[in-house]
Structure formats: structure tokens, C-alpha cells
């Protein structure tokens, strides 16, 4: 309750026009500097080196590859995601720090692609995590990849201005739905070490759909990993 009040207060303070300037500046920088984590699940990964190196040079757009989810802003899922991999992709996504964006590259992330009838391949990536941009194709050319990244940059720049919720906020606000889909696939005892609900509470990102019957199910099986406090 107190936290909500604080958030409201914070939002009230934002009437200061300069505050918007500051926010816009940060948004601008965010759109100009993107660290991407390429989760190379499939063949689409092969198109990334040309996009990064001298032919197309992503760095001129401010996009750099990073290797851990902690540092990254974009999660590039390049190719089909098997159910087992999906668990890891979800963990990786949850370990990324907001604002975080997901790009699904290749048709496989859209609908399973050529693996559409495979029992082992997850079909629709945005059932399990909010995907900002899909770059379809089998595989998409580096031009397409860059086009998609440019589209993402535009989105980032405009999101806060247009009062649109960013996709990553969806994950917190509709956690119950996403969790439900994950549980459907992995069973009811599914959990990651990242406590999304606690995170949503801490940063005031809770929404209507954060809690629900799926999170109740989770609460029953979850072994909460509280941070170790220093104690004297």
C-alpha cells in the first residue's frame, strides 16, 4: 500500500517539465545503445556475424554483442526453441535487467517454422515471454535483422512518449498468463530462481494480471530464494 502511494507520488512529481527532459534523454540513450545477447538456439545465428562485422557493422547503430543476460538489453532468440531450451531462454530472459527487449529471429520463433509439427519445439515464443519484434524468414538476411533492430530502436524512443507500455512491462503486469503458459509446458512445479513477483513489487511494476491462479499454483511449490542478508 505504502509502495503504491510512493509510486503515485513519484508520478505526481513528474509534472516538472525538466523531469521529462531527463527521461527522454535516457530513452534516447537507451535507443542509441543496445547490448544484445544472442541466444543462438538455431541456424539463424549464422546471420548475425555478417550483421556485426564489416559488411553491415551493427556498432555504427550503437548495437554491441554482450555475453551475459545481466549486461544485455536485447535477447535475440535465433531459431527454433525446443522445450528444454525454452526453460533456459526464460531463465535468461528473467535474469536480464529491464528495460529488456526480445527479438525473435527466423520463422521458427514465430510458429515453429519447419519444425511446426515437432513435439519438441515450442511454437509461439510470445506465449512465454513478451516479444518486441519478430524478424521472420528462413533465415532472414542481415539487412532484415538490421531493419528489425532499427524498428526496435524506434519503438524504444517512442514508447514512453506515447504512454505505451513497453513489452517488458507486460511480463510483470501479466505474469500470471505467461506463467500459466510456462506451466502448461513444463508442469506445475515449474519455477526459476528469479522471483518475478518480488521484483514487480520492488519496482512497482505490478499490474492487473500479475497475480492469478497460476501464481497461486507457483506459490505452493516455490522454494523462495530470499537474498542472504548480512546479520550481526
Amino acid at each position, binding site marked *: 500500500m505504502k509502495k503504491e502511494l510512493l509510486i503515485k507520488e513519484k508520478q505526481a512529481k513528474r509534472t516538472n517539465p525538466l523531469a521529462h527532459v531527463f527521461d527522454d534523454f535516457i530513452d534516447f540513450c537507451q535507443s542509441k545503445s543496445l547490448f544484445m545477447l544472442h541466444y543462438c538456439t538455431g541456424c539463424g545465428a549464422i546471420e548475425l556475424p555478417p550483421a556485426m562485422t564489416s559488411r553491415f557493422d551493427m556498432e555504427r547503430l550503437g548495437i554491441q554483442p554482450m555475453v551475459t543476460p545481466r549486461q544485455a538489453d536485447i535477447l535475440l532468440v535465433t531459431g527454433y526453441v525446443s522445450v528444454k531450451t525454452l526453460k533456459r531462454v526464460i531463465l535468461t530472459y528473467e535474469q536480464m535487467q529491464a528495460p529488456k527487449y526480445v527479438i525473435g529471429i527466423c520463422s521458427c520463433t514465430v510458429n515453429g517454422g519447419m519444425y511446426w509439427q515437432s513435439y519438441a519445439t515450442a511454437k509461439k515464443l510470445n506465449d512465454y515471454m513478451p516479444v518486441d519484434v519478430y524478424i521472420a524468414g528462413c533465415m532472414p538476411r542481415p539487412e532484415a535483422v538490421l531493419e528489425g533492430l532499427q524498428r526496435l530502436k524506434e519503438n524504444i524512443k517512442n514508447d514512453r512518449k506515447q504512454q505505451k507500455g513497453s513489452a517488458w512491462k507486460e511480463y510483470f503486469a501479466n505474469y500470471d498468463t505467461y506463467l500459466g503458459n510456462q506451466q502448461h509446458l513444463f508442469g506445475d512445479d515449474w519455477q*526459476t530462481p528469479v*522471483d518475478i513477483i518480488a521484483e514487480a513489487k520492488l519496482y512497482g511494476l505490478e499490474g492487473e494480471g500479475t497475480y492469478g491462479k497460476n501464481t497461486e499454483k507457483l506459490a505452493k511449490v516455490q522454494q523462495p530464494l530470499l537474498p542472504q542478508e548480512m546479520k550481526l
Partner: protein
Amino acid sequence: MNLLDQFFILIAVALLSITVLRNFRINDKMAPLWYGLMVVMLVRMAAVAYDGATLTSAFNIEILGFNMHWQFNALSWFFAIITVVAALASAIFMSGDWGRQYRELYEGQGGNYGLLQLALILNVASMLLLLASGDLLSLFIGWEFVSWASFLMMVLMPSKTAKKAAVKYVVYAMFGAMALLAALAIIYSNSVSFSGSLEFEQITQVFAGMDKGPQFSLALLFFIAFAIKMGLLPFHLWQAVAYAETPGPGAAFLGAISSRMGLFAMIIVIIQFIGLGHLQGMSIGLPFINMQTLLAWIAALTTIIPTYIALQQHDAKRLLAWHGVGQGGYMLLGLIMFDSIGSAGGLMHVLNHASYQAALFLTVVAVVYRTGTSDLNKLGGLVTQMPLSFLVMLIGIIGLAGLPPMNGFVSKWMVYRSLLLNGEPLLFVAAVLGTLGTILSVYKLIHNTFLGQLRVEHQNIREVPWSMMVPMLGLSAIVFITGFMPGLILPWIASVQETIGLPVIIHHLGGIEYAKGGLDMIWVSGILFYGFGVGALIFYFLGSKAKRVHQYDNYAGGHFLSADVKYHYSNNFYPGLMHLIGDWYRGSFKWMEQVIVSALSFVSKLFENMYRSRQPVMLLVIVVVVALFSIYKNTAGVSS
């Protein structure tokens, strides 16, 4: 009755009290009090430390025409205050819960808490006796006392390695004592004017009247005697294991100061009375290698080799004990430069080393108290459970590694500065190599104990009780304050330098004054803390609040971490380095030691077999022949 006599009486009373009361609980309260009183007495004697005065005790003994007397000068005072403060810290530490645990664990299995208290006071008393010695004979007496008192302390841990190490130590110590005795005998027989006591001044006289050869052997005998106690190369093998296996606070006390008695004697004999002139006069083989360079190189190698042995250890206590051996090298390296900055650095390093070594040992003992192990491969992540101990260890390792702003930096800086001024590039590199090795090894120490993954079995342990925390915090406060304001200590050092006839350092509160690059720790620490302040401002005022996460919420390539996966990176912490230098650990010294031991045991077996042989008549014949021969020889000598 002057202050020194009162001090001796106090020591005697304390010794008596602890001897009588050692098995009663009241002793736990009394023992720290006695050490506290000793500190007070030493503070009252502060005039010695600041003015370079000498207090001579009224108490003296005359045996067989030898007069033994005791005195206190700035040098003795400097070592005495370190000794007593270290003892105070150890006594407070062991008087509370640690003592209780020790009783529960070891009483009846060879450990004896009362005896441990007694061993501590005996150590302190004998060390003070040694420090107060006024002539060579009292030095020798004190020397023997110190050796046996340390032995008593070392055997109080009921383990086989402890016993073995203690026996090894005693063998080494006896060898050293014999060397000292032989040196005394040489001095006695070469004295021109013997006045009833073996005064220190006679060393200078005897040296002046000797040829190069005997000079060299005399210096060597003294060196062997003192180097063994100090653990200098090549006599470094006994110390680490023996100290590491001593019961907790005892190890802290011994590690802090005990082996520095060797340095004390070395300062008196080699620095003060043999002097630079003689050392440089004694050239060995090549003309540019003289005794001074030899000692300097021994010191430099002592910094390197034990430090890199420490790097290999995976037991926290042994690691620290090996560093104790290594740091001794810096002290001698500074002193052997015979200039104001170097010797001040060497002397100051005694105090600095004692403070952080005791703090580190006590921290490790605290960890052992809670977890029951000092094996670095079985610990980890304790920082959340024991934050204050972590703080103490952090301060200690910064001191040990010689980084600003702790006191280890000041003394090491002085040693480096002196090596720079004297143009000794290789010694300089050797000293820095030692420091770098220390940084590597102490990071391993703190990482493997306090950082990284917390083991499941350690999830419920808590900080150690205050009786253990207070001495640890006190020692770390000393480490920090003397680092921040070395000027508090430097007057003592200057007075010591004056006493032993070295050039005196020009100092101020923040450090030392020197035309081409001095050191002002107040500025240095100030700048550092300013930097930390700005860093903290940047950190806390920019950016959003951070979410605290559990250790299992960790990037492991998408892997789900859980309690049954031990992912703490601790064993063989520096594999790359060990790939390269691992082959250089040949254990040559150990091999040498074993060769000597086997040779000795072979000879002793030989004699034993002779005694046990079936023809005792043979023995009789041999004895008779030898006796007759010697009688003949002597009578022949007389008749001619």
C-alpha cells in the same frame, strides 16, 4: 626500584597468578587484566621509547664469574609493546567462548586450556626477559626460555602433525641455540679484556681483532642462530607448520611476534654491534658480493619463496603462517640497507606485521570456531554470516598485501624507497614479486572463506561473540590508524634507530619527509577516501535501486543452480600460474632437510647398534683405547 624492576615484578606476579589459578574460571578474567597492566607499565616507560633513555634493572645475577644484567632501551621497548599487545589480544580472545569450545573439544585428548594460558604467559615472560637482556649471556638464557615456551604452546593441539611440527621446531631451536653458544664461546675465547660479563660491546671488539675467516664463521654462527628463529632461508621449513598447528589464539600470538625475537637479536648483534663496515668488509668469493648483499639476498629470497609456497596452501592457517615467514624477509631487507628510510621501514614492518598477522590469524580462528574447518576448499560465502570478521580480514589482507591505506603499505613503501635510493633494481623486483604473490594469495584467502557460494551446512552460523570480536576489531583499528597516521609510530622508530646507531628518519604525523619524494599517508589516505566518497556518491545517487538476489539467481549459461551443485571456484585457484611455475616447486629445501635427517638418524642408529652389540667387551676396549690415547696426547702436550 625503577620502572623496569616494577615491570619485572609485575610479570613475576602475573606468572605466579596464572600458574596457580590456571584451572579456575577466574583466570579467564584475570589473565587479560595482567596483560593490560603490562601495557600500562610499558606506557609509563614511554620515556624510553621517545627519548632513547635506557632503564637498567637493579636485578642481576652472577654465575661462575659471569655477570648477567637486564636493561630496557628503545629497541626492547618497541618489541615489548608489540609482544604485550599481541598477548593481550590473544588473551582476551581465548578467555571467552573460544576457551569454552577448546575445553569441550580437546580437554582430555591432549589439549589443556589451563596449560595454554600458562604457555602464553610463559611466552610473554620469556620474551620480555629476552628483550630486556643486557648482555650476551642473558640474551642466551632468554633465547632458551623463548624456545621452550614456544614448544610448550605448540604441543597443546592434540594432533599428530602438531606434535611432529613442535618436535621439529625444538630440534631446529636447539641447533640454533648451539650455534649461539658456539658464537658466545668464540667471543669469550677471543676477548681481549674480559671484565666478568659478556657485554654486547665485546662483539665489536672481537670482530675488530679477527681475521676474515674467523670473522666470517662467527658472523655465520650468529646468523644461523637468529635466522632459525626468524625462519629465514634456508631455515624456513619448521615455522609455518608449527605455528599453523598451534591452538587458535596461540597461533596468532606466535605468528605475530614470536619469530621476530630472531630479528631483535639480529638487530642487536648484526646491525648494532657488528655493523655495516664489517659486513661490507667480509667479501665472499667475488669482490662485489659481501656479507651485506648476501644477507639482503637471503632476505629477498625469504620474501619470495615462502610467499609462493603460501600461494599453494589450501589451509588458511598454513597460508598465513607461510606469509609470516615471508614477511620476515621485508624486515631484514629494510634493516640491512642501513639507511634511515629502509631501516625504519624494516622496524615498522615488525609492528605492522604483528598487528595484521594477529588480526588475520584471529579471524581465521574465528572462522574455525564457527565452521570447524580452516580448509579453504570447504568454506565460502561467509560474508553474509560473519560480516565483521570479513571486515577484519579485509583490513588485514590489505595490510598484508601492502596496499594503501593500511599500515603494511607504509613500511613496504619505505623498504621500496630505500631500495630505490640505494640502486638495487633486482632486490626491488624481488620485493615487488613478493608483494604481488602476497596479493594473489590473500585474495584467495578472503575469496575462499568469505566470498563465493555459501555452503548449505553454513547457512545458519552467526558472527562470533564479542569476546572474540573485540580483539579482532582492536587489532584492525591498529592496522588502519597506524596506516593513516604512521607518525604515531615513527617517533618510536626514530628513537630505536638512534639507540642502535642508524641514521634517524625525519618524520611527521603523516609519514616521512624526504626531498625527492616522501610519503604523506594522511594525504594519500585522504585522496583515496575522497575517491571512495565520490565513487559512493556516483553509485548511490545515480541509477535506480538495486534488487538483492540470492546466490542461486546467477548466470550459469542458462543452467539452474541449486544447493546440491557446488559451484564455488576454490580448489587450485590459480591454475594458469601453477601451470607455469608449478614445476618450480621442487621442494629442494625439504629434500635437503630430509637428507640431513636421514644422515643423522643413520649415524644415531650406528651408535645405538654399537651399544646394543653382543660384545660389550668391544665397547670397553674402544673406550679404553680412546681414553689411553687422549691421556697420552695430553701428557705429550704437557711434557713438550
